[in-house]
Each structure stands twice: as structure tokens, then as C-alpha cells.
């Protein structure tokens, strides 16, 4: 397999009316990697997903998939790519097998080869025994598995998934991830997915964090977390603003207040904790020391928490 990038996004900008959904985003996805687009709702990840899936062309900039431009060579791109949308795309009046049958035809597959492919994909997602059932009779998790089988039916080299965990219980999410990793390792499948869940992003090989249409961070989850420092101390007190000021003055450390909690990037944390209790006896309600996560990367790069802005309704907190 060549090392040429599977996806190249170059200075991509998209506007809805006069609102910028994407502002000059550039990134590359390597073959056989699971790449996550992480961001709050309204951050621009779904717009990027839609442009890559050839749903509509970008206002400015270009995107290539396996060397083909998504606008100029949409037809080649569509053949090379499987798409799993956030909203279901199955026909509820048809059975599982019928849905895949029609989908195969859309991609030029037919006859015994298609039938064999359907069986294989349904086996892989553990839905072969439900092949004859109508979609409306399946649970949300089962429907999502059929969606994935449908997206992979024509053996694409790239799979795009928009918020794949939406509506899935933890067990079904774990199954899905196991399956995605298997497809990556076994078939060299490149996977690009959007998510607003930090723990899901942590499982990706690399992550791009989007905020207000801008790329604010790009790297492996571990590498990104390391840029924040080794440990982070969270402190709760009656008057966080006031105590934060005094911590800054007396201990000469950098601290911020977010959601009534004082946040201090400092390593090693336990040493700081001792000093905090010595300096401010009786004023501290609780202290937590954590290793930084992507959450902290987001806070560091944007200055606010994940759910604060541009975000009407967080679907679920972690």
C-alpha cells in the first residue's frame, strides 16, 4: 500500500450565507489510520464531513481523496468511499438484505458476487440471522450495525462516519469500535469519523480538533495531551476567583477559573497540592490531580470548555 495520504484537505473554507462554518482548514489523513474530527456541535466537523462525502462543494479550497478531487472527480471519489451518516439512511419498509441489495446495485455490484458480499458483511457485523427482517423491527444499535455493513458493502478504501456512536448504548459502542479497528488492521481501511465525545476521540490514531470552523489542534491523542503538561490540578473553593488570584501571587503558578473551578497546569501535581494546603488551610473544599486529556487540550487551545459556546444542546456528557 502506498504512503500517499488517503485524504488531503487544503485550506478548506465553507460559508452558509455569511456564517463561516469552516475557515481555512488543512489536514491530511494517512492510509489505514483512524482519524477523528473532534469538536463541539457547530464547530464545523459535520460541514467538513459533508464536503468530503461529496454532498456539496466547498466555498473555497480543495479536498482530495486518494488523489481525486471531491468536486471534479466526485464519481471516482464516491466509488472509493463508504459513507455512514449520523441520521439513518436505511429504508425501513425493506428488509436488511433488501437494503443492502439495492445499495450494492447503486455501486454496480450484482448477482452472486453481491449476494456473497452481503452475507459476508452481515456476518462481520453479526446481523446475518436478521437478514430477512424489516429495518423497522430492529433496535437502534442493530440498525447502526446494518448501516456500517452498508457503508462497507462495496469494499471502499475509506469509510466516513458521522457521529457513529449516536444513540448507541455502551456495549454497542464497544462492538462498533472493535469492528472498526479490525477493519483497519485486517483490510487496511482508512477511517475518518466525527465525534463530540472525548473518550471516543481518545481511541483514534490521530485527532483534529475543530472549534468555530478552525483547526485548533492536530496530532495523536497522547501527543496532544502531552503538550498540556503531565498533570493538572483542579481545585474547588468558596470563592474561586479570589483564591486563584492569591495562588498566582504566592505560588507563582499559572491558573485559570473555569466553571467555578480553579485549574492549574503544574507538574508534579502532588507537590503543588501539599503547598496549596499549607498556604490556604481551611479554604479548599476539594482538590483533584488528573493527567491531561483531550478536554484539557481543548481548554488550553480555545480558552473555554467544550460545551460553552456555539453549542445549543450537548447530546451527552462524558
Amino acid at each position: 500500500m502506498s504512503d500517499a495520504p488517503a485524504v488531503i484537505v487544503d485550506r478548506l473554507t465553507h460559508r452558509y450565507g455569511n456564517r463561516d462554518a469552516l475557515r481555512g482548514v488543512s489536514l491530511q489523513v494517512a492510509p489505514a489510520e483512524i482519524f477523528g474530527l473532534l469538536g463541539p456541535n457547530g464547530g464545523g466537523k459535520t460541514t467538513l464531513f459533508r464536503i468530503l462525502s461529496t454532498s456539496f462543494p466547498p466555498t473555497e479550497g480543495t479536498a482530495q481523496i486518494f488523489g481525486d478531487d471531491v468536486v471534479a472527480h466526485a464519481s471516482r471519489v464516491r466509488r472509493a468511499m463508504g459513507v455512514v451518516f449520523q441520521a439513518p439512511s436505511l429504508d425501513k419498509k425493506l428488509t436488511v438484505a433488501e437494503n443492502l441489495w439495492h445499495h450494492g446495485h447503486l455501486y454496480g455490484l450484482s448477482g452472486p458476487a453481491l449476494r456473497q458480499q452481503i452475507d459476508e458483511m452481515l456476518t462481520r457485523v453479526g446481523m446475518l440471522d436478521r437478514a430477512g427482517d424489516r429495518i423497522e423491527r430492529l433496535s437502534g444499535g442493530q440498525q447502526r450495525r446494518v448501516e456500517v455493513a452498508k457503508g462497507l458493502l462495496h469494499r471502499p478504501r475509506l469509510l466516513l462516519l458521522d457521529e457513529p456512536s449516536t444513540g448507541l448504548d455502551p456495549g454497542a459502542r464497544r462492538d462498533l469500535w472493535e469492528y472498526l479497528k479490525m477493519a483497519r488492521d485486517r483490510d487496511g481501511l482508512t477511517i475518518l469519523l466525527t465525534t463530540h465525545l472525548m473518550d471516543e476521540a481518545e481511541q483514534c490514531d490521530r485527532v483534529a480538533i475543530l472549534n468555530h470552523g478552525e483547526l485548533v489542534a492536530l496530532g495523536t491523542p497522547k501527543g496532544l495531551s502531552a503538550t498540556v503538561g503531565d498533570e493538572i490540578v483542579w481545585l474547588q473553593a468558596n470563592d474561586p476567583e479570589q483564591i486563584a488570584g492569591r495562588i498566582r501571587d504566592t505560588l507563582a503558578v499559572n491558573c485559570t477559573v473555569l466553571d467555578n473551578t480553579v485549574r492549574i497546569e503544574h507538574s508534579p501535581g502532588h507537590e503543588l497540592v501539599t503547598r496549596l494546603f499549607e498556604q490556604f488551610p481551611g479554604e479548599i473544599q476539594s482538590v483533584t490531580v488528573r493527567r491531561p486529556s483531550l478536554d484539557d487540550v481543548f481548554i488550553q487551545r480555545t480558552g473555554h470548555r467544550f460545551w460553552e459556546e456555539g453549542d445549543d444542546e450537548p447530546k451527552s456528557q462524558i
Partner: protein
Amino acid sequence: MTNPNPKSEISDLKSETSNLTPEISDRFWLPVASLWFREVVRFYRQPSRVIGGLASPLLFWLLIGSGLGSSFRHTAGGTDMEYLEYFFPGTLTLILLFTAIFSTVSIIEDRREGFLQAVLVSPISRSGMVLSKILGGTTLAGLQGFLFLLLLPAAGIRPTLTGIALTAILILLAAFAMTALGFLVAWPMESTQGFHSIMNLFLIPLWLLSGALFPPDGASTPIRLCMRANPLSYTIEGLRVTMYWNGSADSDPVRTLLISLAVTTLFGLVTFAASVALAQHNIRGGK
């Protein structure tokens, strides 16, 4: 469906395809036929639709037809006819219109239920996608129309075989045109409610002014002009010829039929071309 392949062949095939992207062909008709077939299957899995397309026109026909009965006098070909008979081609057209138009409502459902989004990012061309949808509606409307033809004797009409064949051709052409018209209306719609108001404001008047309910000769001038300009009028005039087709090559009916076929075909081509243009243009950048 059964798998004709013995097991050994399947495993051979498997080892071959496992490492390769399967052959993806550029066939135009395979995806079109597949989605076309889907339209038909979906329709018959929703029995209320099958009934809805047939029952209400049938009821109109019986109530209006026998209600007006012999209060209505129309002289065609030198013989008087009762309203039940006069209204027959109009009812047939209404069945076509209802089934064809309502079959395109599925576009709105496909969009809302998400099926369409997957079709739009698949390799099927836009014209192929539009064609499959319209052929699906044509098939459904055609079948319902043929079913209604079984009632010809009840209207006092004894058609010839040629007459039925010609009627069937005209039915399919008209069904195609009306489905394409429905596509034009349904494609930009976000909800089925919007569709119903268009239906009442535009499609029903189109049918009313087609000679389905009353002949143009007795109507006021503006109405008559509207009826002249209405392509559906020519379809109905054609049906009035084919249903009474008796093999005699009178030049008048033949000329009417030819004009009818030409206008209906042209109507279908124009609405189809417009549908394709609309679907191609519709690359929405908005949410």
C-alpha cells in the same frame, strides 16, 4: 432468493475478493432498475396507498357519474352518452394523477428518513436517480390505470383489443408525464404538508380544466383557452378516441390520437428534463 453457488465456489470467490475492491461497473440501468423496483415494493407494502390511489377516484366516478346521470347530455360521434361514460377517461386520468403524484411524495419521505442522502453520495448519476423515481411512479400509476380499465364494460364501453393496447400506451405516457410533474413539485419540498397545498392549488385545477369533467365547447372563452393550453386535455381527447377504437381508419380520430400522443410525449419529455435539471442544480450548501 436462493444462492445457486455451491459452497466450494463461494469460498473461492471469497479468497479472490477479500483482497480486492470488487469490480464496480459503470452500468447505467442496474442502479436505475434497482431503485425503480424499490418504489414498487414500497408502494405495495403500504396498502393504504394502493387503496387511496384507486378508491377515491372510483368513488368520485360512481357518485358524480351516476348522480349527474342523464342530466348531462353530451353528443359524441352522433350518439348521446350518459355522464358515467363521459366521466370515465376523466376518472382514469384522476387515478393516474393521484397515484403518480403521491408516489413522488416518497421523495420527501426519502429525504426526511435519510435514504436519499446515501443515494446522493453513491455513484448513480442524478439523471439515473430521477429516472428511477419517475419510472417507479409510472409503473404504479400505470398498473392502477390498467386495473380501472376492467370497469370499461360497466360504463357501457366495449373496447377492441387494439383500442385497449392504444389506451395502455397513452396511459403509460401520461403516467410518466404526471410523475415527472410530481417530481418537480416534490423535490424542493421539505414537508408533505406543503405538497398538499400545491396539489390543491395547481394539480387539481390542472385536472379540472382538462375536459375530464366537462367538454370545452360549452365553456366560457377564458376557460376554453386554458383547456386548450392544458396538455392533459390532449391526453383525455386521445383516451376518448382509443376507448372507442373500432378499426375504421377515419382520418379525424386518427389525427386526434396522433396529436394526443405527441403532446403527451412532449409533456413527459419536458417535465423529465426539468426534473433532471432541478435535481442537478440542487447542490445545497445550507443546512
